[in-house]
């Protein structure tokens, strides 16, 4: 196959012409994001208001759950559901306020992965309970 004449278009598998020299060439440019929904979002370095709000909210939710149980504010089954729901809510509060969930070098892949993990976790706990209750009192 004859060589191509010199063209300005890059040969196949070649990167486009670059401006900067002396930079270590990374796999992809920093900040280059393919899926918009997973674009990283860094928190500004100001007063840690989010942390304080998250802490206050978590304490409040904990106290609420504790008081509800101590004073039997609901019948047992409803109380249990409420306490677990409050726990789930607190988990979301802490994930959002403490854990820098949306920060990443590229796309924030931890978000869908973590979401899937929680779905599977709920499935495991829920289904296992359903599967095993039939054995109640049998073994």
């Amino acid at each position: 196959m004859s060589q191509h004449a010199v063209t300005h278009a890059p040969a196949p598998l070649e990167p486009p012409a670059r401006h900067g020299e002396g930079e270590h060439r990374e796999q992809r440019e920093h900040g280059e994001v393919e899926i918009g929904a997973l674009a990283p979002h860094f928190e500004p370095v100001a007063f840690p208001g989010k942390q304080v709000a998250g802490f206050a909210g978590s304490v409040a939710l904990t106290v609420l759950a504790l008081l509800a149980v101590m004073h039997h504010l609901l019948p047992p089954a409803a109380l249990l559901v409420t306490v677990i729901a409050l726990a789930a809510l607190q988990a979301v509060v802490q994930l959002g306020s403490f854990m820098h969930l949306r920060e990443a070098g590229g796309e924030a892949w931890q978000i869908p992965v973590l979401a899937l993990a929680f779905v599977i976790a709920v499935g495991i706990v829920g289904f296992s309970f359903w599967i095993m209750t039939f054995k109640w009192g049998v073994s």
Partner: protein
Amino acid sequence: MNTPLEAGRAGRVPLEFSDHHGALGILGFWLFLASDVVLFSCLFAVYASYGMRTAGGPTPMDLFHYGPAFAETLLLLTSSFACGLCVYQLRRRSRNGAAAWLAVTMLLGLGFVGMEVHEFASYVALGATWHKSAFLSAFFTLVGTHGLHVSFGLLWAGSLLVQLWRRGLNAVSARRLYVFSLYWHFLDIIWVFIFSAVYLAGRIG
């Protein structure tokens, strides 16, 4: 490998994300946390099925008391908050600030572990060992696994303090501190579910 901060990026991207390999490491740790979520969910599934299987021995109502459980919860929650402030200091590029709040995190975490060990010892003194019943096996394993995770975290935090002191703040130590904070916050989230599904649920009856 520490890549130097690229001109123009200073301040736009935090120190711990400035190195591509480091940023990958952070993603890798998030993936590990996702697997740990599933691990704990299996232990919760076991506890959910075994919570009432007390085989004539001590029941949750017999063992669990509001005071110690709430105290442990506050200790760990405050520790998690302190850890958040540690990362805040990290973002302000303050090595001493980060180290100070990391030390506070550790102290509170140590308090948590101490209380929990005392709690377990008191149950054992009552004769409530995990041999006795499936409920006790499930309890000690679920809460104990969490406790072991916390203890390992304390060792990790100690190593981080040493590294901060010897090597200061750079892309590598910043990333490691950030990763530790993810681990520590995650452990508090798990504890929220333990407090609710084990201690509070145990008092509902």
